[in-house]
């Protein structure tokens, strides 16, 4: 919402004590920190991309069980996925509240986001613990090593996001005058949505597609690729 009208005072819902959105002039008009977040997310794509690639290359290569079919519970994880997606909705509402300068609504939506994100982490802790009890430890097989590494790093990203949102909430509760700025919340929102999108990819590949793998009979990814090439070209 850029007000280019210079002849009138700013509208009442934007208090004059509100910190300026753009603290310094930039060439592109995008704030430095926001651009930094976008670049970081681009970089993080490659991080998760490599972990996901490792999982997919090793899919079905474990020589001992438990295999995904024995252990993955798609309905439970569907619930936790829904919870995480709802947290993204709450985040959107929080960003909107911050932009409108509505501190009370901002705090409410941030707390909602945190609770939903924490529930997701709770599900993950429950799931990891259940897997451990059922005999799938980190060192058990290729499936366990790749699964725990990928989902564990995703969980770490969510946890970091929770701490970040918690800091924003505390700041918002202590400063009714307008901190954190809409930009501060916006940047945290970018991160939060990114982590959600990564989870959608993980949920699709590790649960909906890979969750039913029943052992070493799944073809190696390289073999699958080769079959695809020969079927397409020849």
């Amino acid at each position: 919402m850029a007000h280019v009208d210079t002849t009138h005072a700013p509208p009442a819902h934007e208090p004059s004590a509100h910190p300026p959105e753009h603290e310094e002039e930039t060439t592109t008009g995008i704030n430095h920190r926001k651009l930094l977040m976008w670049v970081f997310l681009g970089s993080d794509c490659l991080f998760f991309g490599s972990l996901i690639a490792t999982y997919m290359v090793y899919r079905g290569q474990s020589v001992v069980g438990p295999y995904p079919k024995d252990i993955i519970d798609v309905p439970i994880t569907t619930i936790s996925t829904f919870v995480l997606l709802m947290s993204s909705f709450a985040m959107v509402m929080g960003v909107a509240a911050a932009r409108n300068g509505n501190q009370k609504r901002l705090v409410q939506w941030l707390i909602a986001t945190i609770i939903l994100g924490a529930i997701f982490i709770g599900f993950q802790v429950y799931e990891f613990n259940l897997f451990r009890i059922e005999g799938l430890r980190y060192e058990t097989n290729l499936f366990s090593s790749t699964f725990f590494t990928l989902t564990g790093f995703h969980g770490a990203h969510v946890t970091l996001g929770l701490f970040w949102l918690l800091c924003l909430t505390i700041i918002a509760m202590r400063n009714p005058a307008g901190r954190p700025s809409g930009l501060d919340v916006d940047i945290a929102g970018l991160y939060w949505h990114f982590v959600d999108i990564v989870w959608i990819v993980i949920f699709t590949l590790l649960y909906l597609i890979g969750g039913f793998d029943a052992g070493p009979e799944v073809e190696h990814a390289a073999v699958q690729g080769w079959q695809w090439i020969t079927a397409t070209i020849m």
Partner: protein
Amino acid sequence: MVTITGVIPRPSTYTGLWSWLTTVDHKRIGALYGFSAFIFFLIGGIEAGIMRLQLATSDASLVSPDWFNAMFTMHGTTMVFMAIMPFGATFFNFLIPLMIGARDVAFPRLNAFSYWTFLFGALLMHAGFLIGQVPDAGWFSYANLTSAPYSLSKGLDFWALSLQVLGIASLAAGFNFIVTIINMRAPGMSLMRMPVFVWMTLVTSILLVLAFPIITVALIELTADRQFGANFFNTSAGGDPILWQHLFWLFGHPEVYILILPAMGVVSEIIPTFSRKPLFGYPVVVFSGIVIAIMSWAVWSHHMFTVGLGPIANSVFTITTMLIAVPTGVKIFNWIGTMWQGSIDLRTPMLMAIGFVALFIVGGLSGVSHAVSPSDFQQQDTYYIIAHIHYVLFGGAIFGIFAGIYYWYPKITGKMYHEMLGKVHFWLMFVGMNLTFFPMHYAGLNGMPRRIYTYAEGFGWEGMNLLATIGYFIIVISLLVFIHNFFRSLKKGEPAGHDPWDAPTLEWSISSPPPVYNFAEIPVVKGQDAYWITKREAAARGETVEGEAHVDSSTIHLPSPSYWPLVTAFGVAWLAGGFLIDVGWDYIRFPVCFIGGIITVIGVIGWSNEPAAEEHHESGEHH
């Protein structure tokens, strides 16, 4: 808010040791990078010397095979991650804000954090020497040489965790320079008016932030295997060592361009200045750099032709690798085209730049010869590969770096280096470099494998190896000349003036050395080669352009020094170092790591609670 920032006063000194520890000035951080990189360059060079002495004669026994393994591993790792990359960062730091007409980088404290994290990571890597745990699986540490059963020492844990720390430093720097270049250009400096060095820095930084996450994941997997019994590269559990090669080279090939593109940028600044002509085909040079960066993602498997990926994969990567030679060749023709009919001034930077072009052509040609996968089967793992990589990284990157050091020495120090000594340095290094690495082509094609610690008599390799060792000592002498020239000129050099070369870029419009605020008045850019335009317009009016006059720096709003980057970097290094405690009892190790984590968190909290710059005046608003 009551925080620790309120308890400890912010550092405010601008002189002495403490000021260097807390500095956020990009020029000082650049100097720190340069000094550290040169030290590590010398360490890597000493490691190379030990190898050259051992290989000078057949059946030598100067070092044990194990120590030789450690030497070639640390030589490669040091030169790539702790010498050439930070040399690049030296130029990024010192020059980018000056070239785009800014007062600092976008995130000055993040910049300081990058440097300290780099330094602590490098020290952590070398700490292994103190307890005799040195990495010894080659600089690309192929699985499963690196698996716990085959590598009993802690050397590879030092390697993996220190590289992780160095990666954090590089990523932070990459983020910073992308934002700086995109967002902090002076008015009028559109993308296609940026100096080529700025372009190459942008491309390099983008490659950095996209390539380093891949090695991060590979190192996480390696560490998980070694520390927590995971199975990523455990063949008995179905793991595939080739995955490491794919991950490493998917990072490693863009990394090669991360090493060479800054040098190409430096050369693209020097050749026009000393040919008295604008760069020939500026947009083509820029786009070639971008195309190289994009294509560098499609060539990684040429490091793996002999792995057995099959004829289709080998053919595809043969073709892509040959294609990437095209934009590189285009750049070489542009540099030659710039010199064509220019009035060439053969000062030391220009000699180094021409040396870069010549030697890079040799390295590029041998590169094309192993882009052909059948021919590569003959060359894989021989000294021919060593010859190639040193022609592109020593003949290329290092010559480019020295060209930059000589070119910007007057700007950085305000003094002129000794021209004659500079030329002596160039010729000694040029001769020594060729004497060292050219015979390796023949040794390699005659079958001498790389990484062997000695060889028997009668293979016909003695002469070439002795030549290489003699060449090494000529390089050493040339570096001694450089060091002497550097310190002598600091003391006794002629004052350089603000623009000794009549150069085209903005950093020459301010005094040498630049004042802390860089530009008293942010320049307005009217076209490519901005400072040449300014000078020509002034000449048309019959005036001469003087360096910008100094103003009182307290009138300019600058980022304040901070110790939080140092604290945070220290915490990160402590966290990584804690992992290396080997008492076979995790109840010691993990609490130590936890302390590192706490230090990091304290650093981050202190950092985020302190404003980037202290307010000079009391105003109603608080940021």
